[in-house]
């Protein structure tokens, strides 16, 4: 059996010391020969290197390898001599995914999913590590749930192995490892809790020739279960076991570490251990940063500190953000994903565009996120993405190269015409340039995307992608270089569909960490600053100060997951039947307690443990994990209930809702210092803040004005500034005439009027595919048809023969509408077109059956410029302008007609509806003025068309005579409100729902309106709204 196989166990610190002692002994015995150290993780290499360097023997000829590296050292020559080539990890992943897709039996339903490729990769790796062959697996089909499953798995395994037979990786190298090539004087194994069969075989071979010493941490019987399988194997192999006892703890921290799962006597904590209950992860992270700063003040260098966690996706970005903001240098081992960085986002956005219909938002997402290479940028005029975004929105581009071309060309021509007008502002010319450069860019992009191969070798696909990425993505060389290894798949899978190739590339880019491309990352561990690590990476490392975050139930430890391809039950049966040692994923040796214990033992001088009470501020309640409770119980010397945890003296509880630090000196940033001051000394804090940032005074005033007073303030939309009011008043009294609909808008909501009519804001929405004719286009078409028709018949008396002319005009206008792409899907357009024709027919029938008594008519009559309708309002005159659709008249009387294509309003004849229906009375006055007739002789009417629902609503001269005083009151209230700068919000559930400005309006408007209902302006407005 083995030459010398040693197992040394003990507390982590003791084991570390024993390892160093062994190096010393070996070095003293032989100062030059190589010593080999097999490590469990890549971070252990620099860690142990430094540890040895700091101790007396020095590093000379101490070689560190992971299992794969050891395998390659011992097995690669044999593999290379048999003409096998290395298979990089990325190519291996892509190859497994391709093999998995070939499953046609039991796994067929999920064979093409990315998740299946991943679980297949892990399982195939495990099978190889356990030296299980496809034939051997096939012979054990009875141990699996079904023959179908066994057959498909064996088939996949066999295809996979066959395909990669010309290649090798670390596992192949381990299998081919030749112990005779091992030239060290001893093999030391550190930080490995489990050895797969393939590694056991090699270690066994080495042990035949040279001593092998395995170091295993031991903290408590329950926790040590994590490496029971390895210990059993070592003992069965006849190893010598040395259990090193721990010296009596000399510090509170050491005492806690030695009594981690023990409840003997309480431990009086000192500053070396801190237990924290925080309201949420952000608060936890901030407290960890404060702890690190405090330790630094005590002389511990940042590089000798570690922050660790279980949920990397939650804590890693938080730690990075909080520590960076606090100016604490960090080394992020599991750095941010490349996809979170502009480079990654841009690459992914470009990949999304390939094989896409060039949707406008996708193109803009690609353009907005980062920069193109300089040469490409300059070729297209260097226009900023924001201007291109605006141009494409204005053009109404939705998707498709043809549409980009057509709509941008149209917009460019319109902009050019506008730019060529006299007195055109300079920006008009820039808009033309933007259209041209964007058009050129999109057309070239489309052309390049179209040149992609449909099916090709991996190398050809990579060549195309390489050129595309270099053309459109700046600083992409490293990523292109990384992806280049996919070319190795040419020999295994000669051809690939480009879609599949894209899927694989996308998955790789998404999985890529920013640090993978950062050369400075190599060797930065333990040097750059506080080491931020997942708890798995912390295994067997030690630091002066350690923060463990997120000790929360169901997060630390998390519930384990089974392998869905080969369940634990099947693995157990296979192991039992064959003696294999396939690991049980959920029901095997539980590594969690040892993992936690090692994290606690990782602290040499300072330890910070925290739990959170919610997943996020105000989020779902969470409870401290069993591990956290175990520590608290050990400190308290009794079992602590969950409900007690945050109330015991040893746990510091941070209350929820705190926005600052505990003291001013604890603040991590200037901003937090300000917040702390505000919390601790509110008056002083406010004064300081006001002097530093005067805008905060306005914020405070706004809050008080809105919530503490019962009158409208400028923060409610009432302008107080004289200049603003004068500007508004001059607009009202001296500017262009107001429209009737503008006045109606004020009556519906003054704030809406302010946004739309004073500031003239308009929503710029994402262009959408037109699925059906919209109401606006329908209305325009109806107006145009009627206008053209009435123009055509002139002043002739309408008769049935005119129907042909109406139909002909309708056909022409609707065909034009269709040609302009405004009518949407053909399927719906047929119906909508018929509805328009129905409405026209209905209108025509009405006109025939009720012949107009007027002898003359005018169409599209504008009024207001230069001679507006002047309506006296108090001592001044309101000037009103607009356009009348149709004016019928004779010498004594007249009728104003306004066509409406929507459903008839609920309002009846002669009504003002609180000022929101002013068009008819004002048009009546305008018609009278235009014709020089008495308003009493006329009427103004809406003619509604809606699916044959023809209706007329009129406001007659009689109505006007009867309600003139009320009309004046309404107009006076509106004019006074505008003149005095009263633009408060008048919430209305229905109106707000369709208001363009809903998103920028205060969500608490209803509450504020209610609170201030006794304000004179609101009261008078309410009175106006009562005028029906």
């Amino acid at each position, binding site marked *: 059996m083995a030459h010398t196989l040693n197992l040394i166990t003990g507390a982590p610190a003791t084991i570390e010391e024993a390892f160093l002692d062994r190096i010393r002994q070996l070095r003293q015995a032989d100062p030059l020969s190589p010593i080999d150290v097999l490590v469990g993780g890549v971070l252990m290499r620099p860690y142990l290197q430094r540890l040895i360097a700091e101790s007396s023997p020095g590093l000379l000829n101490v070689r560190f390898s992971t299992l794969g590296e050891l395998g390659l050292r011992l097995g690669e020559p044999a593999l290379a001599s048999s003409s096998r080539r290395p298979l990089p990890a990325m190519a291996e992943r892509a190859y497994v995914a391709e093999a998995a897709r070939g499953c046609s039996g*039991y*796994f067929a*339903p*999920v064979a093409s*999913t*990315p*998740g*299946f490729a*991943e*679980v297949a990769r892990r399982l195939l790796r495990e099978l190889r590590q356990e030296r299980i062959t496809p034939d051997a697996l096939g012979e054990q089909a009875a141990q699996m*749930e*079904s023959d179908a*499953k066994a057959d498909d798995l064996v088939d996949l395994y066999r295809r996979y192995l066959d395909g990669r037979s010309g290649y090798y990786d670390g596992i192949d190298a381990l299998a081919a490892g030749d112990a005779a090539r091992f030239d060290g004087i001893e093999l030391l194994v550190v930080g490995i809790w489990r050895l797969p069969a393939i590694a056991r075989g090699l270690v066994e071979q080495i042990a035949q020739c040279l001593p092998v010493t395995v170091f295993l941490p031991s903290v408590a019987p*329950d926790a040590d*279960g994590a490496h029971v399988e390895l210990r059993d194997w070592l003992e069965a192999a006849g190893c010598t076991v040395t259990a090193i006892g721990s010296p009596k703890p000399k510090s509170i921290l050491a005492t806690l570490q030695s009594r981690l799962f023990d409840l003997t006597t309480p431990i009086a904590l000192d500053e070396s251990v801190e237990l924290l209950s925080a309201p949420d992860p952000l608060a936890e992270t901030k407290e960890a940063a404060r702890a690190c700063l405090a330790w630094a003040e005590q002389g511990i260098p940042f590089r000798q500190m570690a922050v660790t966690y279980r949920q990397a996706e939650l804590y890693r970005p938080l730690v990075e953000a909080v520590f960076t903001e606090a100016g604490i240098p960090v080394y992020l081992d599991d750095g941010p994903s490349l996809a979170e960085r502009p480079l990654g986002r841009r690459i992914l956005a470009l990949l999304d565009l390939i094989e896409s219909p060039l949707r406008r938002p996708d193109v803009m997402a690609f353009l907005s996120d980062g920069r193109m290479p300089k040469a490409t940028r300059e070729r297209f005029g260097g226009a900023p993405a924001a201007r291109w975004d605006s141009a494409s929105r204005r053009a109404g581009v939705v998707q498709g190269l043809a549409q980009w071309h057509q709509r941008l060309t149209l917009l460019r021509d319109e902009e050019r015409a506008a730019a060529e007008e006299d007195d055109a502002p300079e920006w008009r010319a820039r808009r033309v340039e933007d259209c041209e450069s964007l058009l050129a860019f999109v057309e070239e992009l489309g052309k390049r995307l179209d040149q992609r191969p449909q099916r090709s070798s991996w190398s050809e696909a990579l060549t195309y992608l390489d050129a595309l990425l270099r053309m459109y993505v700046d600083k992409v060389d490293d990523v292109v270089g990384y992806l280049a290894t996919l070319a190795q798949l040419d020999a295994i899978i000669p051809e690939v569909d480009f879609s599949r190739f894209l899927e694989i590339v996308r998955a790789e880019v998404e999985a890529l960490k920013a640090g993978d491309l950062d050369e400075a990352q190599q060797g930065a561990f333990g040097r750059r600053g506080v080491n931020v690590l997942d708890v798995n990476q912390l295994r067997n490392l030690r630091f002066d100060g350690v923060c463990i975050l997120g000790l929360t*139930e*169901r997060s630390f*430890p*998390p*519930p*384990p*997951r*089974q392998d*869905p*391809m080969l*369940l634990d039950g099947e693995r157990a049966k296979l192991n039992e039947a064959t003696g294999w040692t396939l690991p049980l994923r*959920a*029901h095997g040796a*539980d590594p*969690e*307690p040892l993992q936690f214990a090692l994290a606690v033992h990782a602290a040499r001088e300072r330890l910070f443990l925290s739990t959170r009470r919610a997943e996020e501020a105000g989020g*779902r*309640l*969470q*409870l401290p*994990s*069993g591990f956290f*409770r175990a520590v608290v119980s050990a400190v308290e010397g009794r*079992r602590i*209930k*969950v409900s007690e945890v945050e109330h015991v003296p040893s746990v510091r509880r941070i209350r929820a809702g705190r926005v600052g630090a505990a003291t001013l000196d604890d603040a991590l940033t200037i901003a937090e210092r300000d917040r702390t001051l505000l919390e601790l000394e509110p008056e002083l804090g406010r004064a300081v803040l006001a002097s530093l940032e005067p805008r905060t005074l306005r914020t405070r005033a706004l809050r008080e004005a809105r919530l503490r007073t019962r009158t409208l303030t400028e923060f409610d939309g009432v302008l107080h500034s004289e200049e603003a009011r004068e500007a508004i008043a001059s607009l009202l009294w001296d500017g262009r005439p107001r429209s009737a609909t503008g006045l109606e808008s004020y009556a519906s909501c003054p704030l809406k009027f302010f946004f739309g009519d004073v500031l003239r804001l308009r929503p710029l929405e994402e262009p959408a*595919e037109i*699925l*059906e004719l919209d109401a606006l286009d329908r209305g325009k078409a109806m107006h145009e048809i009627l206008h053209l028709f009435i123009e055509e018949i002139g002043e002739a008396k309408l008769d049935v023969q005119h129907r042909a002319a109406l139909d002909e005009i309708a056909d022409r206008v609707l065909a034009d509408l269709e040609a302009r792409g405004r009518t*949407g*899907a053909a*399927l*719906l357009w*047929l*119906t*909508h077109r*018929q509805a328009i024709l*129905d409405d026209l027919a*209905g209108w025509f029938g009405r006109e025939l059956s009720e012949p107009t008594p007027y002898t003359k008519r005018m169409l599209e009559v504008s009024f207001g410029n230069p001679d507006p309708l002047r309506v006296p309002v108090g001592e001044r005159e309101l000037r009103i302008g607009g356009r009348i659709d149709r004016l019928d008249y004779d010498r004594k009387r007249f009728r104003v007609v306004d066509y409406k294509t929507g459903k008839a309003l609920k309002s009846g004849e002669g009504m003002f509806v609180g000022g929101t229906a002013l068009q008819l009375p004002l048009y009546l006055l305008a018609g009278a003025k235009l014709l020089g007739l008495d308003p009493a002789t006329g009427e103004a009417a809406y003619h509604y068309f809606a*699916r*044959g*629902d023809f209706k007329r609503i009129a406001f007659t001269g009689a109505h006007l005579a009867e309600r003139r005083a009320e009309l004046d009151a309404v107009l006076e209230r509106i004019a006074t409100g505008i003149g005095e700068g009263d633009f408060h919000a008048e919430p209305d559930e229905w109106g707000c729902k369709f208001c363009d400005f809903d998103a920028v309006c205060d969500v608490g408007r209803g509450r504020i309106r209610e609170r201030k209902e006794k304000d004179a302006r609101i009261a008078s407005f309410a009175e106006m709204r009562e005028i029906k």
Partner: protein
Amino acid sequence: VSVFAPSDIEVRNRIRTDVDNNVCVEAGAGTGKTTVLVSRIVELLRTGVVDIDEIAVITFTEAAAAELAARVRQELEEALAGANDEDRGQIHAALQGLHRARVETIHAFAASLLRERPVEAELDPGFEVLDGLAAQLSFDEAYSAWLAELLDGPKPEIVAAIGRGFQLSQLRTLVEEVHRHRALLPLTREVARPADFEALRAELREAVSVFDEILPCCREDDDARADMQAIAEWRERLAAVEADEPELVREILFRAPDLTPGAGAQRLWDDPDGCRRSKHHRKAVHEAIQRVRDELRSEAFTALVPIAEEFVEQYECERKAAGTADFDDLLEWARELLVKSAEARAYFRRRFRAILVDEFQDTDPVQAEIALLIASDDEPTGQLARADTTKGRPHRRRRPQAVDLPVPSRGHRGVRRRPPWAARRHRGATRPELPVGQGRDRLGQRRVQPGTRRAGGRPAREHRPPPRPREARGRDALGLRGARRGSH
């Protein structure tokens, strides 16, 4: 140490210790249901009836699940402190593996079933759960793409619906409703009653004949006169388009006279009875028009439902292909997994030997079905406890009652049992409303029989496993034959 012993201590003890039988606990708020639930879990673990991997404890909020897990740990620790040598090993093992235990919300439990058997669920093993906003965005994107494609080809149902006054926004509302209640698919096909034009014509004929008779008695200024004339004119227009059904339909839907059947004053009639008859017939015509309109729109709407179903099914396939699931999917797909896959069903029945459901009154039929499918008596495993609060009587505190479940009817009993909401209907409990038709009977059973084919669609999903031989059936309502491990 408290010396207080509740007067119902025997009942509480029975709930705790009677681990060989199913228990249903119904009690008011604050009476200690969760406490007895926890004590029962500890007893199940202590006595070795189940181990920690064989127990599923389901509740309905994350907070409740965390609280429950923490209480179980605490109780186990206390039990360990006072345990004899025989029990110590069981309790210690339970404590060691507690973080693996399925003490979780029904959604998390359903997700764990899917992650354990993704192949049978035909789902990406690494599937991602979409939260509310992400799920909504995903739906929006899928709907837009589907609608654009739908409108690109011939779809007479859409043309008919739009022609009858439906808007695209209403189609979306319909699709959203079907999607929301997709657990009920396939919906029962409703055949809309054809529009009864003849009844309308008959009503018009009779009304116009009466109007001819009474119109001379009506003064010019009575509002009823305009109505009667409008009806008479409209009847003529209808007659003119009788042969052209599309035109006839448009005439009825959009051009029918806007009647005011209540208009008319007897003082303006020479014969007051004429006024009454006028009102009567105008009302009858008004109602006949509305009836035919309803029939026409029902017909169009009914034709849209299968289209909405198509989208919902297609979108479900897309989600599965993309490896994404929303919260409802977790439940529906877990249920489907248990119904469709005998292997998975058998596996989970072996895997979970005890199921405990807290707040059972909060389950909906799909959730209950998941629990009951696993807790079936196909295999001699499982326990089901139910801790139920009494809704509707919050102020009346009742002591816990331990109730053995009655002997069941045969078949797939977990499903056939009257679901909790059915029992609570009188207290205002609601079940999902269907947009059209009812896909299930009043007890939540699908009407479609296994193997039947939907018109133009895939076969209806198998709903129930075939009945088992009588001798294999268990003894109680849920088929939850409790047994100590190893006794079968």
